[in-house]
């Protein structure tokens, strides 16, 4: 009984795998023929993707997706996804591309392919323009606000010198408030949080002093699609050249595209 159930399940899985394999045979040609580029974008992760006051998705990823569709000369069809289902949406062929603040890691690389990076995503130590900090050792004697248990907390705690004081707060808002009210010299956080500060308090916008962890975002696409991958990379490279990706970064992250991206 158990055995037959198991073989039935195996057959079922195989069937699904075959069917989805067929579905993702989609390539660049199919997209142009269809005249529609289907892209998965976030809706819960500003400034990369959120729902605007007009109930339309907006954000860096949406603008990037629009750029890709425009350059391919097709219409754009957006699908809102979250961070857990964005890769399944791609692998089951429901979308052609994932432009959803997707970072690269070995586990993901086994399942999907990545384009070149299109936006910066990093954790760093930020501070006022005049603060003299260029290396980790310069943090000695400084107080830095940081959100407890965050990735930046783990990263910075490992490298911070003895003389640096990390003041740990419960959430990003308290961490930001401590910096803006002058209770600390520096703030350790991500460039996304920095964009949120820029939106609310552009006068005291901190600038990046140290980069703790770099994890830029990539367009995700299904494996074995060389034509589509090539096209996406060409568009990204051209957009870096002509400054349109930089405009998108300035618009949503309030920071220019880093040179090395």
């Amino acid at each position, binding site marked *: 009984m158990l055995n037959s159930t198991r073989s039935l399940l195996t057959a079922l899985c195989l069937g699904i795998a075959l069917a989805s394999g067929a579905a993702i045979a989609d390539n660049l040609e199919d997209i142009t023929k269809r005249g529609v580029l289907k892209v998965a974008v976030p809706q819960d992760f500003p400034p990369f993707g959120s729902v605007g006051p007009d109930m339309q998705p907006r954000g860096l990823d949406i603008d990037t997706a629009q750029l890709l569709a425009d350059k391919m000369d097709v219409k754009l069809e957006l699908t809102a996804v979250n961070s857990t289902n964005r890769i399944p949406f791609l692998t089951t062929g429901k979308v052609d591309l994932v432009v959803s603040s997707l970072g690269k890691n070995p586990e993901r690389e086994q399942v999907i392919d990545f384009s070149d990076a299109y936006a910066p995503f990093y954790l760093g130590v930020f501070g006022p323009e005049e603060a003299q900090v260029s290396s980790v050792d310069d943090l000695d004697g400084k107080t830095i*606000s940081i959100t*407890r*248990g965050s990735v930046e*907390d783990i990263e910075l705690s490992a490298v911070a010198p003895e003389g640096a004081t990390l*003041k*740990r*707060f*419960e959430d990003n808002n*308290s961490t930001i*408030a*401590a910096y803006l*009210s*002058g*209770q600390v010299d520096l703030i350790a956080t991500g460039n996304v949080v920095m964009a949120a500060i820029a939106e609310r308090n552009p006068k005291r916008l901190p600038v990046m002093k140290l980069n703790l962890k770099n994890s830029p975002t990539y367009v995700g696409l299904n494996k074995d699609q060389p034509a589509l991958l090539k096209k996406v990379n060409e568009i990204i490279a051209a957009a870096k050249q002509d400054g349109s990706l930089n405009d998108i970064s300035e618009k949503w992250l309030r920071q220019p595209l880093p040179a090395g991206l």
Partner: protein
Amino acid sequence: MAYEMDFGPVLANTDVLLQGAMFTLGLTAIGTLLGVGLGIAGALVRAWRIRPFNYLFGLYVELIRNTPFIVQLFFIFFGLPALGLRLNEWEAAVLAMVINLGAYSTEIIRAGVQAVPPGQIEAASALAMTRMEIFRHVVLRPALAKVWPALSSQIIIVMLGSAVCSQISTEELTFAANFIQSRNFRAFETYLATTLLYLAMAILIRQLLGWIGRRYVVGAR
């Protein structure tokens, strides 16, 4: 899906927890001394209607007793720097605890002061006691003796309430617990240990206050 207990990661951080507990006790000690002092002053001013201070204390008591502690704390730590007064997290925590306990103990002690029969004060004046002597022996001590249990409870409440100070990065016991929990994700074990520590500290303080009360306040009349 039984949860596997593992106290190892918590025990490895015993020193962090104990240091946090020490800081909590220190905060409570300073907060209590200054706060009860403030409360005694406030109680006298309020009970004896010394103008204009009785109005000021009245305002202060209403303001503090009718707003949340965490808001008072955030106002001091995040808000006051806008007015140029920048207190670090310890100063802000102590100040918040002092003004909070000061307001509550003003009302508690005032009840005691008002319960002292006027005849008792008149009798003391008739015995040619100075105002200071009357205040110390005839008013304050009997007043404190009457309200000692209520005051002790309020001090325990302030000690437990100091957990909120973890929100402005004051590294007391709750901060230590949150810190450990954020590193090893052993929420049950960490907070169980923290709960027991708070319980032990509360019992310790209650015993201590009980002893002080019997020895110096209630007993030695």
